[in-house]
């Protein structure tokens, strides 16, 4: 069986075949399959043998993602939903290239453009403050401001489009 996981905007293919009880053959992408055995699982903590090497992983699910901590690194995976089912908010904000959103919730402290302004790629369009840090939102493209959805002082949510652009 093949799964496609999305992590930080990249898609990863994983092929998995159940071997025997609590044992699998798993291959990443077109790589060689590895034998993975589950030794124990308890309260979100899982012990595996991966090709004989003991690996402890922690996993939890929330908000449609699975979060996994292994070897000190943590990852958030989403199962790829297929193109037919449309794109998520995050994909819109990042992928289409003409929407500018804050990657985190915060307060819109500065709005540097208005409707109709021409902007350069990399130009700072707005500043959002969260956790006492200012973060500049820059234009992903050269274009024209088509819409501004918020005013200075507004609270904005993560990935909520603040400015909509049209490419030039």
């Amino acid at each position, binding site marked *: *069986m093949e*799964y496609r*996981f999305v*992590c*930080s905007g990249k898609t*990863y293919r*994983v*092929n*998995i075949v*159940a071997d025997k009880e609590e044992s*699998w053959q*798993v291959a*990443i992408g077109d*790589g060689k399959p*590895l034998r*993975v055995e*589950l030794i124990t699982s308890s*309260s*979100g*903590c*899982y012990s*595996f043998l*991966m090709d004989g090497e003991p*690996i402890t*992983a*922690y*996993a*939890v*699910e*929330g908000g449609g993602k*699975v*979060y*996994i*901590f*292994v*070897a*000190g*690194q*943590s*990852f*958030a*995976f989403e*199962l790829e939903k297929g193109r037919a089912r449309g794109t998520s908010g995050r994909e819109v904000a990042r992928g289409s290239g003409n929407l500018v959103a804050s*990657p*985190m*919730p*915060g307060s819109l*402290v*500065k709005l540097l453009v208005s409707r109709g302004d021409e902007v350069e790629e990399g130009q700072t369009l707005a*500043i959002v*403050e*969260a*956790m*006492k*840090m*200012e*973060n500049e939102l820059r234009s992903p493209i050269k274009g024209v401001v088509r819409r501004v959805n918020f005013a200075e002082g507004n609270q904005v949510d993560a990935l909520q489009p603040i400015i909509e652009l049209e490419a030039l």
Partner: protein
Amino acid sequence: MIKKVLVANRGEIAIRVMRACQELGIKTVAIYSDADREALHLRIADESIPIGAPPASESYLNIDRIVRTAKRVGADAIHPGYGFLAENPDFAQRCEEEGIIFVGPTSATLRLVGDKVAARGTMQKAGIPIIPGMTFVGKGIEDFRKATSSLGYPVLVKASLGGGGKGMRIVRNERDLKNAIAAGRREAKSAFGDESVYLERYIEEPHHIEFQVLADKFGNVIHLFERECSIQRRYQKIVEETPSPTLSGELRTRMGEVAKKAIKAAGYTNAGTVEFLLDRDKGFFFLEVNARVQVEHPITELTTGVDLVKQQLLIAAGEKLALRQEDISQRGHAIEARIYAEDPTQDFLPSPGKILYLQEPQGPGLRIDSGIYPGCEVTPYYDPILSKIIAWGETREFARRRLIQGLKNYAILGISTTVGFLIDLLEHPQFVEGQTYTNFISKNMGGWRPKGNALDQALMVAAILSSEAPTKPEIVAAQATSPWQELGEWEICGSGV
């Protein structure tokens, strides 16, 4: 002695202070904003009082409300922790006026050392080396332009009331100067309520070394050796250690004496830190006095055996320092790593959200000062520090390995944290060699991503869990918000009723 302390802070430092109070037999009062109704520090305190809306200006920075709360609950002292009102002279003065002990220096001292520009002048007069730069607050852009003409680029924009890197901007050419000053002013205003900024020469690849001091109200001053705080991102420390791998014994002694001299020149009392920049030629410059308990105070505690927060409380209560300089020695090595709710793959962007899973490490030589619990919400309102992990070892190398093992067992899921980044930083060959300087991260860790084998292992785990997942309708541990969502098979027990 103090009987009851109101802790005017939140998170790990509020808990740290409350623990010291408990050990001294002092009652504790927590305050909390509406965003912190479920925060961990409420569980530690003897009583908890709400003090306002989530924005800090309406709660943790609300001087009037905090002072009135202290009086109402009968607290005879306020400990401000770090950040928020810790170095606010108006707050300290208000406490003095109301007869409440402020656990820190006097308002007059705070006013002096808090004004970086004034402090630079005082130190210069006392014969302490300072970094070349402005000794007055810049008004119009011309003031700054004029300063750069003698200093040369790069320069650093600094907030006069600054601290923790807030309002700081490095400027490498004339073109960026104006924007940098404007941004620095906005951040300074938001963080400290004052937009004064000035310029200093930017020293390339310096070491950031600070000395911990304790000063009582009877003129006794001791230092507790240094902390090497060069590893920073966004001008904020993220890894600190002591002893510094850079200092020779002779230089350590000399800087310690200068630190005590600086403290005396400022008429400083209570626990404080004298920060220095050490340049490539081992020249050192006074940077500022941090008039608070520092985030990184545990590494000093672990190597000297002195409890700094307890000392703060004793000094504030008017006791004489029981420690003399000759009582203080360093034993072994300690390294602290700060765990922030930040995404190190996105330039340390804050990452608020819910902690869906938490497993903290333990074991020999590890200390965890934590402000989180499984299921808690990390809100976007405050500094994104979650916890600190500190390792002590007989040698730097043993401490480093312990810290890495600790981080590898510090499972925080649901939000991005600095854990994985810190492991790779601590394993970097330059860190192993003790080659730490303030641009270590931008130079060595740029474009950091988790290593491929960890990603592969995580993908395999994800695939296994996906392939075996039957339907099950709710989230365990993560989103349980009421008792009955967590107690399974309860009805077996309850069915007899």
